[in-house]
């Protein structure tokens, strides 16, 4: 105990217990390193998620330009704007990029940004793994588009049916580039899924028992479980395809007992859950927006959560509805019609609950809420057109026609992109500290809403009219020119809407009005902290007393103290009831995740050309992982409190 210094000898020091001092100490510990090196070594979930969101949006833009080019080609019959070879590369990379490089990474990145804050923790459970996941994803995306820009873009369709994609009918490396892009993005998706699940299970704020977890977080957890089960199937399939092409395995070669339908089963067993992997996070975003903008918690919390789980499970039982035109037994097919119908029930329940929330709430129709209404209006068309497709006899007429692109874009744009854009306007203030322009937001919304309908409703009609899909042109005497032209004009409207959205983002970043911590009056924990959030999220981990964390209490929030302020420490709580259980030290920024991703990159890309690449990659990976797992130097003042394993708490 030091003696009191004489007042005259000591300058006035800041109070070490003031919020400002605490903030300074925590920032010092939790911030990224400086400059480019800091950027490359970051293990901060918000930094990584934000760059991932920007990356995903960039791929969205490129794929969108590809779509615009395709629509220009299709605007007139027998158009000569783009020939079949380039067109096939465009539609393949458009679909592949949208599904693998935009949709899934985007929803996972939004989860990785907001889930930790919403559940009251400081970082995801595995900070380095998170960084590794991003770099792996980036390499995969660059690989795909490097192919396209060197005229080796995949051209066999995003679904890559064999034998067309096999060694007999797709020479060169186009398909192999696609197959390895799948591997990269599958690894990244599984990594992100594990992050979300473990973080939500083990790092929730004290008091946030499972029945107090926000529906947005539930949606991300359900999606993550689905990723763990579904993604390995497409990775296995694409590995088998790569091996058929590289080392002459016979998985899909019928002359040696292989089977083209094996590919379809494996791919669609992944492919159907995949669209729900994309859609369920959209439901989560809608839930968050509806609650905040109706000024009441979501109606029917239990029903909504159980419905999300039910959708997740049921989505694994539908995949054969993509294969009705193949020689499968008819009784089997009827089962899949019924299962496809069944999934409409929990989906309907969620939408009914949100309508009930609006009904009994006090809604404001700012831009995020407009996108929610747009979601209801557009997704329902998508879902109902899906019911037409699930009925085997009708499906046999309209599958593989332009009806399909109409259907999928209604569900994907309505079910995921609209909620995403609503979430963008909703959370932009939290990420940047500035508000977006409401005026520009509303204009973009209407351009997009009208544009989507003008683009894709004609496609539903064209399918009924007999136009097949995946065609680079069509004959003039089919009479399909008018509807195609309309659809192409709609695409222009969509492009304009996206452009305005980008302008809105840019202007708001530069000069948007200051947002403050809680511009919308939200109920979840992210609105308790400053905008933008500090690197450490919460100065003290908050304690949650109800389902709506911020609406359950007024005034100050109860919190826990006692985490170390001189190193990165997070609180871990029990799985069911979120009782504080242990403390855990997180790693400092490190370059190892990037190096590991590069090792994986070397192995997989070299492996496109020669199997020896896999061996080299494996060795490099082992070295990188050894560096990853190697114990770091013990820091000063480290004292572990060890709990002997007989303790029964979980």
């Amino acid at each position: 105990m030091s003696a009191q210094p004489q007042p005259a000898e000591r300058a006035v020091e800041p109070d070490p217990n003031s919020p400002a001092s605490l903030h300074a100490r925590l920032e010092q510990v939790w911030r990224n390193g400086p400059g480019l090196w800091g950027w490359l070594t970051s293990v901060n979930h918000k930094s990584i998620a934000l760059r991932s969101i920007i990356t995903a949006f960039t791929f969205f833009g490129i794929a969108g330009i590809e779509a615009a080019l395709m629509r220009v080609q299709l605007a007139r019959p027998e158009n000569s704007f783009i020939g079949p070879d380039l067109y096939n590369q465009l539609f393949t990379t458009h679909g592949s990029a949208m599904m693998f490089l935009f949709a899934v990474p985007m929803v996972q990145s939004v989860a990785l940004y907001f889930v930790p804050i919403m559940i009251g923790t400081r970082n995801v459970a595995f900070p380095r793994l998170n960084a590794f996941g991003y770099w792996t994803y980036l390499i995969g995306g660059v690989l795909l588009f490097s192919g396209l820009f060197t005229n080796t873009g995949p051209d066999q369709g995003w679904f890559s049916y064999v034998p067309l994609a096999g060694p007999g009918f797709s020479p060169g490396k186009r398909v192999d580039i696609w197959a390895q892009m799948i591997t990269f993005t599958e690894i990244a998706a599984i990594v992100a899924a594990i992050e979300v699940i473990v973080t939500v299970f083990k790092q929730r704020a004290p008091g946030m028992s499972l029945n107090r977890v926000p529906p947005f977080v539930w949606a991300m957890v359900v999606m993550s479980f689905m990723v763990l089960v579904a993604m390995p199937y497409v990775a296995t399939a694409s590995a088998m395809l790569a091996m058929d092409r590289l080392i002459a395995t016979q998985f899909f070669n019928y002359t040696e007992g292989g089977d083209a339908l094996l590919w379809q089963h494996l791919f669609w067993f992944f492919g159907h859950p995949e669209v729900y992997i994309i859609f369920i996070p959209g439901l989560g975003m809608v839930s968050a927006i509806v609650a905040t903008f109706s000024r009441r918690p979501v109606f029917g919390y239990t029903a909504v959560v159980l419905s999300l789980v039910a959708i997740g499970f049921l989505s694994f039982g539908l995949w054969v509805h993509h294969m009705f035109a193949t020689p499968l037994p008819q009784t089997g097919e009827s089962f899949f019609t019924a299962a496809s119908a069944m999934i409409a029930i929990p989906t309907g329940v969620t939408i009914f609950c949100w309508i009930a929330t609006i009904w009994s709430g006090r809604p404001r129709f700012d831009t995020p809420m407009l996108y929610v209404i747009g979601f209801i209006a557009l997704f329902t068309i998508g879902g109902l057109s899906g019911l037409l497709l699930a009925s085997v006899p009708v499906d046999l007429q309209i599958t593989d026609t332009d009806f399909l692109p109409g259907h999928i874009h209604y569900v994907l744009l309505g079910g995921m992109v609209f909620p995403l854009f609503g979430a963008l306007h909703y959370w932009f203030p939290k990420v940047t500290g500035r508000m977006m322009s409401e005026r520009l937001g509303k204009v973009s919304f209407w351009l997009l809403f009208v544009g989507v309908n003008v683009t894709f409703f004609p496609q539903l009609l064209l399918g009924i009219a007999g136009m097949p899909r995946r065609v680079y042109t069509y004959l003039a005497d089919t009479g399909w020119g008018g509807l195609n032209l309309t659809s192409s004009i709609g695409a222009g409207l969509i492009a304009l809407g996206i452009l305005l959205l980008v302008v809105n983002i840019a202007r708001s970043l530069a000069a948007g009005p200051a947002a403050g911590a809680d511009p919308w009056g939200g109920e979840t924990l992210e609105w308790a902290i400053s905008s933008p959030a500090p690197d450490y999220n919460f100065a003290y981990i908050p304690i949650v007393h109800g389902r709506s964390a911020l609406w359950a209490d007024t005034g100050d929030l109860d919190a826990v103290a006692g985490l170390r302020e001189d190193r990165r420490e997070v609180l871990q709580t029990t799985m069911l009831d979120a009782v504080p259980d242990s403390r855990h030290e997180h790693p400092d920024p490190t370059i190892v995740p990037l190096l590991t991703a590069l090792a994986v990159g070397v192995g997989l890309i070299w492996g496109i050309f020669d199997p020896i690449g896999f061996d080299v990659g494996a060795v490099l990976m082992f070295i990188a992982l050894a560096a990853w797992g190697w114990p770091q130097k013990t820091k000063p003042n480290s004292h572990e409190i060890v709990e002997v394993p007989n303790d029964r708490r979980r």
Partner: protein
Amino acid sequence: MTWAGSIFDTAGTPAARIARLAWFLIIVSGVTYLLVLVATGIAMRRARARRTQGELADTRPETANRLTRNVAIATIATTLILLGYVTATALTGKAIAWPLNAQRPLTIEVTGHQWWWQFRYRDSVPSNWLTTSNELHIPVGRPVRVILLSNDVIHSFWIPELHGKQDLIPGHRNTTWIQADRPGVWKAHCAEFCGHQHAKMLFDVVAESPAKFDQWYIRQLASALPPTDSATKRGHDVFVQRTCIMCHSINGTEAGSNVGPELTHIASRPSIAAGSLPNTRVNLARWILNPQLIKPGVRMPPNALSPADMNALLDYLETLK
């Protein structure tokens, strides 16, 4: 409704039953959609009224009970509609199955190639089996069993006026059936992405009276007549001495390859290039000279023929009725 070429322009039983089901589902979907929009609209209006009256959000238990009841009713209604949907689907599926008591069915084996169609009619007399390309004739009123095979990649056989589509999958033997109940002439498109020229892999469908069909069949079975005058003789020589003979066959000549479509009666066909070009002298000339300009990626190479040779070849081909 007879939107020509659409799934509603039905000319046979399976397609007609499917079209009925499709209408039913479209109407039910439309009504459902309107209900959802109306519910959303009412919710928005009530809520706005609440705001203008300065009320707060309504979380009273009686409201919650009422809303729970409404959500439950909507869910039950959804379930009932879906049950109806599944039933209607099952009934239609049964109704469009291959009729087990089919009278004198015709059997046609369809083989998909990149990017053209081969049809082999399996007559009850094996020596009367007919192989032809890119043009399918069927007799009105007779059920046709279609066997679907593929020579290379997956294609899909689809005549919307008659039935839904079925895929041609290498290594698998798929089957479907069609039956025209009225005469007609239609264009069918391949309906599974199969590579560069999937977009222009079409075939002509002609449904005609049984008498006309028999006449057509007998004519198609006949071999090509030998060339009579010097021009057609020269054309025949161009055909068998240049590259044509490597891929195409003409019954009655030395040309017997089946890599490409057979051409024994090409002059009788309404279109060339797998249904994508009207069969005119000019089009034929353009096509033979450089198919890559019309269908980039197609397997047929350009053929540099002198104008004299080309005219002779065209004269000869025009005799192949």
